[in-house]
């Protein structure tokens, strides 16, 4: 039987939306407050969805301790309490939550494949930037609700 396991995590980070290829005015016009020069921060909520057959021996899609460990090592320790603009992956990429969402998906897909969680398929990541806006990425696939 195939089930979908969803797990939520939190991390906090700062960013500033700014593109060097635009003029100062264009940046201000496009990004508004998010372009304020010293940046600002959010408490991000990350929701990770993995799917797979429920193992009859354990009743689980995957071991939660292993999933938590993988997400902690590859995402939370990397981004929590960081300034996203100072990170190498955002040197040429604006640290919007769209871009962060895609990156988190790609990192997790790679890292899950390296562990014994490889039977679990990463379906989707969802990033809430605030309670009012959120972003989802399913590796380019349509979302299933």
């Amino acid at each position, binding site marked *: *039987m*195939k089930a*979908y396991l*969803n*797990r939520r995590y939190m991390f906090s980070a700062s960013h500033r939306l700014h593109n060097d290829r635009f003029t100062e005015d264009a940046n201000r016009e496009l990004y508004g407050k998010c372009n304020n020069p010293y940046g600002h921060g959010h408490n991000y909520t990350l929701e990770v*969805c993995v799917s797979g057959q*429920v193992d009859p*021996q354990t009743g689980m*899609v995957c071991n939660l301790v292993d999933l938590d460990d993988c997400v902690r090592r590859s995402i939370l320790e990397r981004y929590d309490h960081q300034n996203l603009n100072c990170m190498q992956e955002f040197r040429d990429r604006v640290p919007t939550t769209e871009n962060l969402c895609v990156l988190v998906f790609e990192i997790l897909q790679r890292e899950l494949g390296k562990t014994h969680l490889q039977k679990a398929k990463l379906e989707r990541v969802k990033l809430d930037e605030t309670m009012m806006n959120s972003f989802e990425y399913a590796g380019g696939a349509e979302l299933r609700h």
Partner: protein
Amino acid sequence: MSKYVYLSRRVEFSASHVYHNPAFTAEENRRVFGKCNNPNGHGHNYTLEVTVKGEVNGDTGFVLDLKDLKDILNSEVMDVFDHRHLNKEVPEFATEIPTTENIAISIWNRVAPNLNSGTQMHRVRVYETPDLFVDYYGEP
């Protein structure tokens, strides 16, 4: 093109459970299930969200009468799961481990046969905590 409308209803129940597979050694049980293997069990406040789909009835304007869904959830889920020890009091968990995955599958199997024709199950979502939930769509 179908004109499905999706209707969801939430209920909450509280239950205790323990994860233990008698085929494993005590050490394996501890390693695989961690704290969830503590011998006297532990409990959660579960939130269940059942989503059904169907076309809107031209006479009633309903996908289904919410009262009917409420009655089904009361008799098939609340009466069976709420304030119970799942391993000891819910028949399927005498042999299966009452993980959130298996609870979602069990609820699907209990609710689906009771829906009126014309209404189909879409999804069962079970929250064990706000940070951990499982979706089941009836897939094999």
